[in-house]
């Protein structure tokens, strides 16, 4: 058998998962990981924790050089792919250098969306997505600094919590409401309450019309005419796949790179995984983006296995996240909307700040949201992923989510063993 050369562009979670998978299948194949950043792999997920001083910067790296040696993988840092030529099976780097591959994985991740608001050039765009962003932010930070954050997603909330812990004042402008993609209005309100108690200011349902400099302060004018002033303006309006270099390559790009169930693009031997890929949705089967770490790992694994010559199919991504803030915890798994035909059970204890919500379809769990309920999110995910019939135990699952989810999981595992 001849050996193959696998080229992985991007050293994030998807790229590293593919590397692990390929190496576990093939001992001989050549593997090369190319990263546009000039540092070892890290995850943007950790940036808010760096900010709050949870770990030292030196502990950030997912793996070290030694790891790549052990995996017999060539690592090229600070190298940017500017073009892909699938017909020639080549990538072209900045500077014109070309490299051949047998299989290619595009795992270039995402970049923050730059808001189209007046005065953006004057103030300068500042996102919170890369290590460089973090370093620049901490260089500027002083105690008592006032940060204007635009957006209310997980990155915005994580950033806000990190900044508060560092003694900064946080003002957030959220176009609809915080964590809209993960939690319903009531749950969102409970989470917001914790942030407000920490001194954050959250303005919901408003957009920023204009930003500008006023002395050494930055001023943001909202759609209702009111204005906010701060020392720094950070935009966290979500991310968009990093795909601009694929123009003219013939690789099909919709909002992200369109991939089939094997994570392959429309071009032979070219795969995509992670934030950059538009892959199958677990519930609908439709293609869509899902820029979260668990999906990146899962997709990277499947793509890697297929690149190494095995045949694996992607089950589809499920929206999910966990979020810990100021001694509280929240998690959201699966569908959060109240679609037709969905049965929703909900329970809220405002005084205790506790919230539980379960969504069912055809007697199966399809979504769950918890605030300050100490469930095993992974076990809840297990119930959803395995499409377990919950049937008459729905109410009990709402009352005792920890015990009932563990029981259903254990029962299914043991029956799976033929017991």
């Amino acid at each position, binding site marked *: 058998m001849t050996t193959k050369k696998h080229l992985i562009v991007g050293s994030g*979670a998807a790229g590293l*998962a593919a590397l*692990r998978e390929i190496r576990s299948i093939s001992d001989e194949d050549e593997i090369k990981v190319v990263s546009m950043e000039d540092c070892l792999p*890290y*995850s943007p*997920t*950790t940036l808010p*924790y*760096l900010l709050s001083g*949870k*770990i*030292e910067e030196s*502990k*950030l*790296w*997912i*793996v070290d050089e030694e790891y790549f040696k052990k995996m017999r993988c060539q690592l090229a840092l600070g190298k940017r792919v500017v073009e892909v030529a699938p017909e020639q099976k080549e990538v072209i780097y900045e500077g014109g250098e070309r490299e051949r591959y047998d299989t290619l994985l595009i795992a270039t991740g995402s970049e923050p969306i730059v808001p189209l608001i007046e005065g953006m050039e004057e103030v300068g765009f500042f996102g919170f997505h890369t290590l460089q962003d973090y370093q620049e932010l901490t260089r500027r930070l002083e105690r008592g600094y006032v940060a204007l954050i635009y957006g209310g997603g997980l990155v915005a909330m994580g950033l806000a919590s990190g900044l508060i812990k560092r003694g900064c004042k946080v003002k957030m402008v959220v176009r609809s409401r915080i964590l809209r993609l993960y939690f319903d209005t009531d749950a969102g309100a409970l989470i917001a309450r914790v942030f407000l108690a920490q001194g954050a200011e959250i303005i919901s349902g408003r957009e920023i019309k204009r930003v500008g400099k006023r002395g050494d302060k930055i001023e943001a004018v909202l759609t209702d005419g009111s204005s906010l002033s701060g020392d720094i303006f950070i935009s966290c309006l979500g991310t968009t796949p990093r795909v601009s270099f694929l123009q003219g390559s013939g690789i099909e790009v919709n909002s992200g790179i369109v991939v089939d169930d094997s994570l392959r693009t429309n071009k032979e031997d070219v795969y995509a995984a992670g934030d950059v890929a538009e892959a199958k949705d677990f519930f609908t089967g439709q293609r869509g983006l899902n820029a979260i*770490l*668990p999906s990146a*790992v899962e997709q990277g*694994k499947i793509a890697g296995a297929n690149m190494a010559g095995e045949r694996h199919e992607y089950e589809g991504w499920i929206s*999910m*996240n*966990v*979020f*810990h803030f100021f*001694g509280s*915890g929240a*998690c959201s*798994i699966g569908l959060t909307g109240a679609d037709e035909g969905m049965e929703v059970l909900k329970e809220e204890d405002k005084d205790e700040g506790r919230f539980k919500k379960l969504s069912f379809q055809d007697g199966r769990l399809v979504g769950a949201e918890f605030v300050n309920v*100490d469930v*095993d*999110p*992974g*076990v809840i*995910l*297990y119930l959803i*992923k395995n499409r377990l019939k919950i049937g008459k*135990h729905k109410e*009990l699952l709402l009352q*005792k989510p*920890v*015990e*009932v*989810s*563990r*029981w259903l*999981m*254990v*029962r299914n*595992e*043991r029956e799976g063993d033929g*017991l």
Partner: protein
Amino acid sequence: MAFNDTLVIRRLTCPEDCRACVEACMNKRGLPAIKAVHLPEVGFHSIVVCNQCSNPKCAEICPTGAISKNETNGTVTIDSDKCVGCGLCTLVCPYGGIYYDYTQEKSFKCDRCYEEEPQCAAACPYGVLSFARSHQVYLHFHDEDLLASATGLCAGCPAELAARVMLRVLGRKVITFRTPGCQPIFISRVSSIPTLMTNIASSMTGASRYLRKIGRDDVICACFVGDGATADVGFQPLSGAAGRGEHILYICNDNEAYMNTGIQSSSTTPLGAWTTTTWVGKRSRGKGEAGKYMPLIMLMHNVSYVATATVAYLEDYVLKLEKAKEAVKHGMAYLHLHTPCPTGWRAPADKSIELSRLAVETNYFPLWEAEDGRLHLTHRVDKPKPLKELTKLQGRFSHLTKEELEQLQQIVDERFALIERLASS
């Protein structure tokens, strides 16, 4: 190679409201990394704890690489200096084995008490939790593989695995003895002496006595022979050697018939089984008598060490081989291996290990050992499966009527009751 010692949760439910393991864990580490799950509404009482997965999802997802599987002991551990407390690991673990600590704001999980005996297993009064040292099996995989890589055995024959493990554990200081028959130890890197089925025990006796006379009692005389040689034609010298307590290690590879010569019935062939000499037709319904149960017969000879084993329980087999190796210094050691024979049992070749396991799980072939005559079960089956589970995979039993199967079940039950009585006395 990771030594995969494992915390085993037996498939029992726990007594209501028992928290012994949780409390033991708390005493050790403050926060319990094992969770009791009591759900009286459905009568479910059990525990969840980290499985120490071979490909841990928690480690795959950790955004700082803080979670890893320890290469020497197989434990999945968290490097607390690297953990940011994002909780993503709790989101992907399907087994409820990793948790968030709100005080430290970091994840935590079972570290299996590192190299010590896990406290939870030690504290469990009901045998639900135990600590399996499959570590022992893996240790021997560092040793030389003394058996040739090729095998002349039938497809799916588990005797090769049994013989390979036997030689790994016994090492080079051994002389093997063999007879005509299914002989997996035929080609190996240790000395081997061919004898006959009728005289193997006396041949071993002679060799072992000579070795002791010349001061080479470090060399073990061991055999790996079939049930025909053991229970029928070679029984007299075996009984004699056992009675005298000769320093030999006798392994009976019991596939329940003379398989090598064409599936003729032996005295260990079970009741009702088809063989080429116990036909199934109008006048004959397979073997007409119950199979002889050799292990207890050997126990009654006052043999130093007697044990039963199968390859489905490899760690159990390895521990028994180690004990047998030690016991030969004081007297005779007898190991009775139950070895499914796909050819003779008319069973699928890919079901051998499953058959070995089912033989134990149905109590058809209980795992026990007796050191200096004291018998104890080494693997207790909580809810024995009906014998049908074992027989339905074998063509040699396919003719059995419900009544005939019940007769066989009765033999199995009575035999097991006897073993249990011996174990408790």
